[in-house]
């Protein structure tokens, strides 16, 4: 049976939004601890190439994801050493990490350039995937799509319901206070940065092993930057990251369906291509029209170095 148009659009939207969610949620945790890591594009590139290479050699996409995660953690660690131990400027270090990651991934990826992988089979959720209309859209996906949902739930619970999450947020809001009551601010931030790196690595792995199973230089194509923007527009709220990511993916997919359908439409395709960006901004501006909620959600020490000796 041919899935209906709506369920095709929903399905493709969810797939397109997945790498954004995984990467953005990781970055959200990093930023909640008060560290701004702009290196997502570079980390995703490294995750993508590592995952691809390992999957090529082992034939096992799960090992690939793990490799992407480890590569992402390594990149996170490099950033953490620069920004947290040596207290380098976080904006500059993050940008450098992006450039470094994109370049290094191209170098490492040379032997894999334009190789392809067999596509990873979807895992249908038993029972649920038979629901008319929604079954195909939500429950016939590759494993990482379900992972992105679990990740969102876990991070939301961690940040707002767990003690450790409270500590993490305290470190982002008032590092001096957290330090004075005995928390190791630098160590907590290290963990948050490395977690963010791991997630961006998985986001990249999703692109090269699941979404478009091939490696070519530049294949992340700006998705790291979109993920960073999503965190800000989501005003540091996990659920809104999901809204933003699907809104972005949904606009991209819908405009493609509209173009391909042959509907007589007098809108320039360039405008349609820009629509996901515009729509994401507009909707999230509406969500966050109250300046106070942004101020409340934005970690107070974001981007500021912290030294326990000072």
């Amino acid at each position: 049976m041919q899935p209906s148009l709506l369920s095709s659009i929903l399905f493709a939207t969810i797939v397109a939004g997945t790498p954004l969610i995984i990467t953005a949620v990781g970055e959200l945790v990093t930023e909640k601890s008060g560290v701004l890591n702009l290196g997502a594009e570079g980390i995703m590139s490294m995750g993508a190439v590592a995952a691809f290479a390992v999957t090529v050699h082992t034939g096992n996409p799960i090992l690939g994801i793990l490799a992407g995660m480890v590569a992402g953690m390594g990149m996170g660690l490099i950033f953490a050493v620069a920004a947290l131990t040596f207290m380098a400027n976080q904006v500059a270090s993050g940008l450098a990490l992006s450039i470094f990651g994109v370049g290094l991934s191209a170098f490492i990826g040379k032997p894999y350039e334009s190789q392809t992988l067999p596509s990873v089979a979807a895992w249908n959720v038993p029972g649920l995937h038979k629901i008319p209309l929604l079954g195909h859209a939500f429950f016939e996906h590759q494993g990482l799509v379900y992972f992105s949902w679990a990740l969102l739930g876990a991070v939301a619970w961690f940040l707002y319901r767990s003690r450790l999450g409270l500590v993490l947020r305290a470190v982002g809001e008032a590092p001096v206070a957290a330090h004075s009551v005995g928390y190791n601010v630098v160590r907590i931030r290290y963990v948050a940065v490395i977690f963010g790196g791991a997630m961006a690595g998985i986001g990249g792995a999703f692109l090269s092993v699941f979404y478009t199973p091939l490696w070519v230089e530049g294949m992340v194509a700006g998705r790291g930057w979109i993920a960073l923007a999503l965190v800000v527009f989501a005003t540091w709220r996990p659920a809104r990251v999901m809204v933003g990511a699907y809104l972005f993916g949904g606009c991209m997919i819908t405009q493609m369906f509209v173009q391909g359908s042959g509907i007589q439409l007098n809108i320039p395709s360039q405008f349609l291509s820009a629509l996901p960006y515009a729509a994401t901004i507009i909707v999230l501006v509406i969500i966050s029209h109250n300046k106070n909620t942004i101020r409340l959600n934005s970690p107070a020490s974001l981007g500021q170095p912290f030294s326990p000796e000072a």
Partner: protein
Amino acid sequence: MNSRKTVVTTLGGLIAASVLAAAPPAAAPTQVGFVYVSPVGDAGWTYQHDIGRKEMEKALAGQVTTKFVENVPEGADAERVVRGLITGGAKIVFTTSFGYMNPTEKVAKAFPDKFFFHATGYKTGPNMGIYNARFYEGRYLNGVIAGKMTKSNIAGYVAAFPIPEVMQGINAFTQGMRSVNPKAEVRVIWVNSWFDPGKEREAALTLISQGADMITHHTDSTAIVQAAEEKHKENKNLYAFSYHSDMSKYGPTAQLSGTTHHWGAFYTKTVKEVLAGTWKGTNVWGGFKEGMIKLAPLNKAIPADVKALVEKEEKAIAAGKLHPFAGPVVAQDGKEKVAKGKNMTDAELGAMDYYVQGVASTLPKK
């Protein structure tokens, strides 16, 4: 003793220097630079240019050295790269993407004794030539195959930017398809990017889900042929046409054919002319006849009669007897663009900004 030795050495040096200066310029290899818009990879637009570069280097061994810079963004960065190649010693620079046109022209004006060649543009100068290939000739034949092979009568086309070259491809494909199958229609998705494998794939999947069983693209990655290969398992009549390179490696069952580019002979000829001092302006636009484009190998799934038809038409195009835009060419809105009995002129081709009848999507009016 010491001073005498110095004199001898100096004299020797002077003699050596004068010998070097007097030697004919051909003795020192001329440096030729190439600017690429994407990574070389192993398929695609840039890959074909790089093959051409290597062929030229081999053909003119000893006379030239080449240098290339890949992944250069179109715009201000391109100017810096072209300047860098010139100040780094290059005498001839080939810039291989449309967006390099203005930067190339700027640098060409600043260095009147160097030579510049820009692919796919329209600005020339005393030391700046342009070159391009008639990709639409190959597209027409791809369309003929698609028209014969389709069961749904819908073809999908993933396109980058609405510039004349891309429009020519879409329209030629449509003309070819409709020449053998008047019921056929072509649907177009613009991704507004030359290179974003994720987005290209998404566009291809969208077209497939909307009923297209023939898909092709004018973007730079192999993602579309690869997507078709995967979906071929579900729909045995789903096929793809590659562009730039033969991509049968990515779609051994799904690729029916494709339009491939071949720049080596042009690069060799042009550099030779510059070296010999015989170059006099270049506005090269070559097709099947000049060997600048070829069809990718035909898939075994193509029946013998279709194969014969394509081979016959390829010869006719090369001989100038068949023009993909032979009149009557009717635009989507019903206006006749070329009357019966006439062929579209190069100037008209270069200004193409409309869809022909048979394209189901609409182009917004300006």
